[in-house]
């Protein structure tokens, strides 16, 4: 355990935004993040890796498989819409710009290869304090990107059972109990639009009742796992996020938060 002075813990949404957002938001965030030491965890790194690499590999695959960049962009936009994803969601929004920058497939593919094989790690770890917190010993998304022929094999979210989520949650049972005991009336008053807190409450109750936290339950309460691990690793930590769910979790778990909305940052400038 480290800590003493205030420090930020960057969740997955902040980690993505600090690199992949447009300049105005990045500038605001990175200016704020430069004010305190910034920490992160292996758990968040694996979530980040899964999100960024999955999307980069998908874009790479469709470009290889298409005759032209225009055809690839049209196919990708269709795929994103079918997945109910906005075209301005990150990191896809940045990948879309590559189609405007390049006229042919090769330089675009090379740029993606560089991201997939190497640079995503620097975008994650830039300006972070080392080592990453790792009480959970998360083993998700362990595969390294593997190229077969012209295509990369998709990264899977499969995790091995030899992580320590079980032991970790046992050691943090008081937090799990707090989550399980969130009052339903309080939950109704909270702005839990996505239903994340309700799901975390139900999963916490199930785990306390003996359900193994490995696999699906761990993913269902990932925001809570991230928050509890951050607090357990660094008691005076401030959770930094672009996801309003963390504001609610911070209130429930008594962890200070610094949660931003992209629109508010843009409107305040």
């Amino acid at each position, binding site marked *: 355990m480290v800590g003493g002075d205030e420090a930020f813990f960057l969740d997955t949404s902040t980690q993505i935004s600090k690199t992949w957002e447009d300049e105005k938001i990045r500038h605001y965030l990175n200016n704020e993040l430069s004010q305190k030491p910034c920490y992160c965890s292996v758990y968040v790194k694996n979530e980040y890796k899964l999100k960024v690499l999955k999307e980069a590999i998908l874009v790479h695959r469709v470009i290889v498989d298409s005759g032209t960049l225009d055809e690839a962009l049209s196919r990708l936009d269709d795929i994103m819409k079918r997945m109910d994803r906005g075209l301005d969601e990150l990191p896809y929004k940045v990948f879309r710009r590559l189609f405007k920058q390049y006229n042919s497939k090769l330089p675009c593919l090379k740029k993606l290869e560089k991201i997939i094989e*190497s640079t995503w790690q620097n975008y994650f770890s*830039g300006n972070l304090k080392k080592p990453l917190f790792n009480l959970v010993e998360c083993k998700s998304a362990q595969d390294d990107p593997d190229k077969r022929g012209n295509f990369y094999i998709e990264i899977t979210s499969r995790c091995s059972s030899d992580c320590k989520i079980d032991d970790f949650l046992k050691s943090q049972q008081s937090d799990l109990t707090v989550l399980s005991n969130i009052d339903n009336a309080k939950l109704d008053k909270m702005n839990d639009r996505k239903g994340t807190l309700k799901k975390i409450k139900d999963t916490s109750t199930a785990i306390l009742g003996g359900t193994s936290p490995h696999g699906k339950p761990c993913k269902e309460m990932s925001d809570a796992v991230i928050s509890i691990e951050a607090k357990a690793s660094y008691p005076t930590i401030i959770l930094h996020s672009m996801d309003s769910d963390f504001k609610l979790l911070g209130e429930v778990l008594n962890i200070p938060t610094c949660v931003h909305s992209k629109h508010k940052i843009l409107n305040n400038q």
Partner: protein
Amino acid sequence: MENTLKDNFAEHTPLTEDISQSSIDKWDRTSDIALSLLQRMDQLEAFVAKQKNNEWKRKTSIPSIFIPSSIDIPLKIKTTFKKLEEDFSDFSNRIVWCDELKNCLSKFEEELEEYDAKYLSWFVSTLKDVFSYNYAETITEEQMDLLKNGIETIYEKQEKCDKASFAEYHLQLVESGLSLLPNTQKAIDEFGE
């Protein structure tokens, strides 16, 4: 009468034996020609395959035979960077030299496609990205020192351009605040939203 008919028939119609012999002769001649053609086709195919193989060997052996251990890097990149250093405090000249550097690096990146030099190409394309995505006016002196290291690396330490050294250099650029993705105002201004 019967004989006359028979004789006439015999006169105009060859015996079955004769027909067979004639056909066999013709078939033999035809099959000889066909076999000969097939043999020639086999020879031709073998020749084409050999040529293709030779071509493939020639192509694949180019890097080991013709590519020198050190790739000649256009001097223009170095001289332009020198001019950028000299004129760094002059904003209008800085913009000109940064734009020129972007073009030189972009051209060299294309030339590198001919070579088996993946990580050197990553260094070059990353340096190009700096000048593509960052407005010249926003580059600081500390960032210039990093860019100078990158330029020196591609000229003087080419053999050390491996994945690990690239990752280390890239991290330094990321941590310096330089943008290496098309999500800057400059990229939006140039390529659109």
